[in-house]
Structure formats: structure tokens, C-alpha cells
């Protein structure tokens, strides 16, 4: 990828982020509901105090002024103060980020590990009964509401079999001994050799990660299968076969390597939608991630937090697509044999 292309792609970020910021700001501004009223609920208050709270939160300023103040501050990475937490929005978001990213990556890993072998086998045994079962089976994952599947998993593994914990990232006794280095519990516990903590964290993450990753499995399996079929038809494979190379070796070494290009690309792109789609899983499994926080914040009109989080999602989305682009170009220099 040339440098100009790189700069060009990065410049494309600007209008997208600007557009996203305008839309989310206008959306929140046009949404009925007064954050102060919601915060007070049915507790005692005086009109004077409500006025003062509005002033403290900056809600007494006109909308356009608020937008430009927000934009100006955002350019300096100051996203304001969360109405409810009374701390900088950036702090509140960053605290929740590791949990969300860890869950997303785990889900993606589970999806990849399941999807690639299934996709390859389905392609090799095209139209066989295995292909059909793998196809339908993987489609099951996109065919049921995630929250329902998650609750079913909980009932089975946590209540009926009592094998796995219901909520949280790690039991306190285990988590307390792990020093945060990367803030990803699985990695931190592993590099510090704390295997009990690692197992406990794994027991916590496994059900939410499966729930979140299931739909992705179907998509990735289809991509792998299609790519594999295409590769298997390519001349160089036919040529290699004609040369009498071992078929297994052709399949897993040469064919898969090239078939993986679209799979990896799609996986990188879809990680973005996975990141933005985990609020439901986080609710069901009491997972302390960002998605749940953002949804709760929309309902209570915590504008600064919603604005900052949506911008973060947008940046992530654009960067992941960018990454997918790079991956595609780097991996692709067509056939190497």
C-alpha cells in the first residue's frame, strides 16, 4: 500500500467522524427528555435547584453553541463530564473498554476457530451431507435472538449443571491477585503464571463469548467455504495435483493460505459490528463492558457519554476497515506456490 493511499484513507476519516458527530449530537438534542428531570425522578427538589443543576451540566446553553463547544473540546480529547458519574467521560469509557474488547476478541477467536475448519471441510466435501449439516448448523447461529440463546446457555450451564458462573469477569479472590498490565484478564493472568485466575476468567468469559460469537461463525464459515471453493478451482491447485503433490498438503498448506484472505478480511471488518453489538450479551451476563453503559446512557440522556462513545465506535469502525484493506493487500499478492 502506497503512502498516498494511506494518507488518503486517513483523510477519509475526517468527514465520517464529522458526520457521525453531527448526527449523534442532533439525535440527542432532538430526543425529548430532560437529563435533570430524569436524574431527580420522584425525589424532593426545588425549581431553583433544577435550574442550578442544568447550569452545572451546561444544559442552559443553546444547542448550536453546545455542539461547537463539544467539537472544540473533542479535538483536544476532552469529551466533557458524564452527567451521572461526575467524572470525565473519557475516564468512564476507558474503564469499560478492556472488558468489551476482551469479550469481542474472544468471540472472534471462537468464531474463527469454529468457522475455518468447518468451512474448509464443507468446501472439500461440497454438497455432501456434511456440507449441508455444517451449512444449516452454522446458520442456526444467525437464526435466533442472541439474548434468548444466552439465557438458555445460562440456564443450562450455570443453573442446571452448575458448572459455570453467571455474571462478571472473574471472581474477586482470583482477580485481586492479577496485576493489570494489558487490562485483559486472560492475558494478564497468563503472563503472570496465575493459572487458577486464568481458568476462573475463562469460565466467566466462555458463555458470553459463545453467545456473541455465534452469528459471526455462520458468516465466516460461508466466506471460508466460498473462498476455498474458488481457490480449489484455481489453476495452480490443479497444476499441483497434476504434479502429484500430497492432497492433504495442498489443501491445508497452499489452498487454505489463500482462501483465508477473504476470511481474515471479513473478520477484521466484522469485529467492528461485533464491538457495537454486544450490549445485549453484556446485560444478560452482567459483563462490565461499554455497550451496556452506552445503552443505559441513551435511556437517561447522558449526552456527553453517548457522543464520545459513538465517536469512538466510528473511529474503531473506520480503522478496522482500514486494517482489513491493508490485510487484503498485504496477503493478496496473488498466488505463491
Amino acid at each position, binding site marked *: 500500500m502506497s503512502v498516498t493511499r494511506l494518507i488518503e484513507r486517513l483523510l477519509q476519516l475526517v468527514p465520517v467522524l464529522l458526520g457521525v458527530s453531527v448526527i449523534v449530537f442532533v439525535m440527542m438534542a432532538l430526543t*425529548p*427528555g430532560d437529563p435533570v428531570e*430524569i*436524574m*431527580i*425522578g*420522584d*425525589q*424532593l*427538589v426545588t425549581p431553583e435547584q433544577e435550574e*442550578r*443543576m442544568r447550569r*452545572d451540566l451546561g444544559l442552559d446553553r443553546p444547542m448550536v453553541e453546545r455542539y461547537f463547544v463539544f467539537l472544540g473540546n473533542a479535538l483536544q480529547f476532552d469529551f466533557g463530564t458524564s452527567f*451521572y*458519574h*461526575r*467524572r*470525565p467521560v473519557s475516564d*468512564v469509557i476507558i*474503564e*469499560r473498554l478492556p*472488558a468489551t474488547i476482551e469479550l469481542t476478541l474472544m468471540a472472534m477467536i471462537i468464531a474463527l476457530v469454529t468457522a475455518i475448519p468447518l468451512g474448509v471441510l464443507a468446501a472439500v466435501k461440497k454438497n455432501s451431507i456434511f456440507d449441508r*449439516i455444517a451449512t444449516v*448448523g452454522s446458520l442456526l447461529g444467525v437464526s435466533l435472538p442472541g439474548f434468548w440463546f444466552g*439465557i438458555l446457555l*445460562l440456564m443450562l450451564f*450455570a*443453573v442446571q449443571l*452448575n*458448572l*459455570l*458462573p*453467571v*455474571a*462478571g*469477569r472473574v*471472581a*474477586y*479472590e*482470583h*482477580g*485481586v491477585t492479577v496485576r493489570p498490565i494489558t487490562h485483559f484478564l486472560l492475558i494478564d493472568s497468563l503472563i503472570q503464571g496465575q493459572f*487458577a485466575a486464568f*481458568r*476462573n476468567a*475463562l*469460565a466467566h468469559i*466462555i458463555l458470553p463469548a*459463545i453467545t456473541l460469537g455465534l452469528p459471526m461463525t455462520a458468516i465466516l464459515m460461508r466466506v471460508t467455504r466460498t473462498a476455498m471453493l474458488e481457490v480449489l478451482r484455481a489453476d495452480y491447485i490443479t497444476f499441483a495435483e497434476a504434479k502429484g503433490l500430497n492432497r492433504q498438503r495442498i489443501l491445508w498448506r497452499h489452498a487454505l493460505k489463500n482462501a483465508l484472505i477473504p476470511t481474515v478480511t471479513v473478520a477484521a471488518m466484522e469485529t467492528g459490528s461485533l464491538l457495537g453489538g454486544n450490549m445485549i450479551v453484556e*446485560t*444478560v*451476563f*452482567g459483563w*462490565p*463492558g461499554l455497550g*451496556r*453503559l452506552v445503552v443505559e446512557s441513551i*435511556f*437517561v*440522556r447522558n449526552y456527553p457519554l453517548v457522543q464520545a462513545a459513538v465517536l469512538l465506535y466510528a473511529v474503531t469502525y473506520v480503522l478496522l476497515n482500514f486494517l482489513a484493506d491493508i490485510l487484503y493487500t498485504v496477503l493478496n499478492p496473488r498466488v505463491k506456490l
Partner: protein
Amino acid sequence: MKMLHRTLVASALVLATAAPAVQAQTLIVGFTRDADTLDPANHRNRETETIIRNIHDGVVTRSSDMMIHPEIAESFTQVSPTVYDFVIRAGVKFHDGTEMTIDDVKFTFDRLLNEGGMGDGQTSPRGALLGPVESVEIVEGNTLRFTLSEPWPLLPAMLPHQQIVSKAHVEAVGSTALATDPVGTGPFRLAEWRRGESVVMERFDDYYGGAPGIPEAGPACVERVIFQVIPESASRVAALLSGDVHIINELPPFSMNQVANSPNTEVMTVNGTRSFFLAMNNQGDIFDDVRVRHAVAHAIDRDLIIDRILNGTASRIDGILSPDAFGKNHDLPAYEFDPERSRALLAEAGYPDGISVTLDTTGPMRDIAEAIAALLTNAGINTQVQVGEGTLMNQKWQTRGGPKEGDMFLSSWGNSTLDPFDIFGPTHGTDARGNSAGYSNPELDALLDAAAVELDRARRGEMYREAEAMASADLPYVYLWVPQDIYGVSTRLSNWSPSPDSRINLHRACLD
């Protein structure tokens, strides 16, 4: 898929053998929501307060039977209608080992009351919970004087909602850092707050023992307490049944049997303080007729809904006040279930063929709204339910006297003091914040204003009883019920009972 399933079971088994038994001395509460902040002066959220009150103590507190007990204060006296004196206890320690003094208490209240008192030009959102308190001054030695701008009998009942912070600590770290780094005088000190996941607290061994009026003082029984955030109710129940947690709040009524029938868990209930009602748009052209409002009341079988949907865990009310509230009128007309009477009243009001209306409500009350709608439809009041986000519905209905769209609104109002002051005025006063019905009765307004400052307790109670009778005749709302708060607890838990004000006080709770 099948292979996947087998792998899942297998790996789950491997993981399970590694999961340790929860240590006996860690008490875990499965809780609906994380705290917003751990600064007692910087929030307006009930769940946040529930968590904070295990770390911070107040000047006074309430016992499970809603009696006010001095806590940080040794005693208090009302010197005059507008002056209260609190004698602050000696020998109370903060979690950082420093001695708590009367200066800390004064600082706490100055921070709540003063404009800009939080620093950075910010004012505490909790100031208005102190009503007409004007100033807090040290008069002599250990006596702190609260001066009010007008008489306010509610002061002692509202004070448990404010907790004492350390002056030195707040001045050292500032309000923003205090949110995550609290130093209180409560039975537990913060060990770690894992945002969004759990608030972990450890026993404070130098605890002075809490309110002497509530027995068995001394340091807490358990070594560690964890508030584990589990927002989804089915998951919360699952965590209790599987033994992951020992107390859960907001146990749904339909899960009571499941919890009660399990050998390791049981149900605990306490009378709540929240009144549910059906607001009718008194300004609209259907419900401006009191006969139509009476017709609605006769059409709703409250006992049936309490029995079938709420599993018997609610007390029927005929006025806005809870049966446990001060000033409750126990002789109100009952508006018994009588659909024929409803039809007759409708006919009398000029609607022989019935009426068609919509019933607004919010998600959590959808079931009840649909049951009410079915009952109303059955009595000739053809009702369509409309469910909306709480914020949108409140915006639509709580117009403070502004024009109002809509027919009926199923809603509720809390009353954590069980004193009529913070529920009657807000829901029935002309143009008041929570007056969803748009009701206006100058005579009632005058009575409520007088009762708010009446210091003779007997006279005050009489005034509220009269007010309830007036409201019952006008019937701006159909008063429905006050539900119990339902908790699920492990049978290993002892010496804990829920509080009506939704405090989860774990000071005395033990695990075997």
C-alpha cells in the same frame, strides 16, 4: 453443531473443576445496577445510595421498621420550630484511621448546601433533599445546629439520605477523585470498585458499631461484601439459585415460588414505600367528569391483579398514601370492583355505549397495564395500551400544569420517608412536578401547604387524613397498591432483613 456442543460440555467440565468454592466470609449481593459514584454528595440515585450506605454512615439512620435512630449523632433535639441541635458522637474513626470530628460533619453539610460547595463551581445535586435547611453551625463543643428558614417536620426523616465524608480527605483529593476513592465511617471500607462489575468492600475493624438504638453493635460480621452487578432479572435469579450470590434485590413476583422451593434459598419481603396509581387526564374532555373517573375505579379488580400477577405481594390502597405512612386515612371509600356500576356511571355521564381511551405506561409495567386494559374494556371502557420509554412518558404526563395529551397513565411515585410530604404535594398539588393527572383543587393545595409546616404531630396527621378524604372523593387517580420489595436470599445468610427504604445494610449480616 453436535460436535461443538460436546466440546462445550467438555471444556465447561474442565473449567468447573478449577472454580473454587466461594470463601465463607464473602457475602455477595446480586444487584440490579452499579453505583454512579461513591461520593455521597454527588448523585441522585437510589441504588447508588444503597451501595454508599455500607461505606458511609449518616447523622441518623433508620431501622428496618422505619424508626429514626441517631447514628453519627448521639442524640438530637428540636430547640424551636426552625432549629435542631445534634450532638455528635466522639470516638468515631474514618477508614483512613483519622478521628471523625464535628468539623467533618459541618463540612459534609456545607458541601451539600452551599452554592459551588463541591468545588470547580459545581453545586451538589442533593441540596434540595435538605428542604429549608439554611445553615449548619457548630454551637458549642460537640453540638451542631441546623437552622431552617421555615418549619419542616420532615428533617429527621430526610437526614438518613446524607452521609458524612472526611474533610481532610475531600480537601486533599477533590470531588472528582472522591467519586472512586471514598473514605467514610461505615462498617465497610472500599477494597476495589470494578466499574460496571462489582463494588468490593472489606470489613472496617475499627467501626464504632453503628446506631446504638439497633441491637448487636460492633464491627461487621462478614469479612468482605461484594455488590455484583447483574441487571437482567432472570440472570440474577439464576445466580442466586446456583449459589453464586447470597442476596438478590428486585426478585420478580413470579420467581418467588422457584426461590422458595429451592432448598438453599428463600424469599424475604418488606412493605415498600412506592404507591402505584392510574392517572386520569383531569384536563381532558372525558376524564374531567368525576363520574367517569369513578367508573374507571369500579372497573378495576385490584385484588385480582395483586393476587394473580403480583403473587399477593402488594397492599391495596384507596388513597395515595401507603397503609404504613404517617397520616394515612384508613376509612376511605373502597371503590369496590363492580363493572355494572361502571357502565351505569358511564351512561349517567352521557356515554351509554362506553368510551374508547388509551392507557400509557412504561416497559416494566406492561403486563399490569394490559391486565387493567382488559378489565376496563370489559366494563365498557375500551382501552388500548401504549408502552413508551419512561423518560418519554414522564415528559408527556408530568407537564406541571402545561397542556396534556393522553387519557390515562399507569405510573408510581416513591415515598421513602413514609411521610406524606414528599408524595402528596408532588402528585396532587396544582401544577406540581408529579401531578400526572393535571388535578387542581385550591382547597386541597391550602390544606397541604398548611400540613407541611404544621408542628403539632397529631394535628398534622389529621390534616393529611382530611386531604386523603378530599382526594378520594375527587378521585384524580385510581389508587392501586403499594408493592412489597422482594429479595431472594441464601439460607446461609442470617441476621439480615430488608428495609422499606431499599437500604441493604450488611453491617450485621452473617454467613455460616
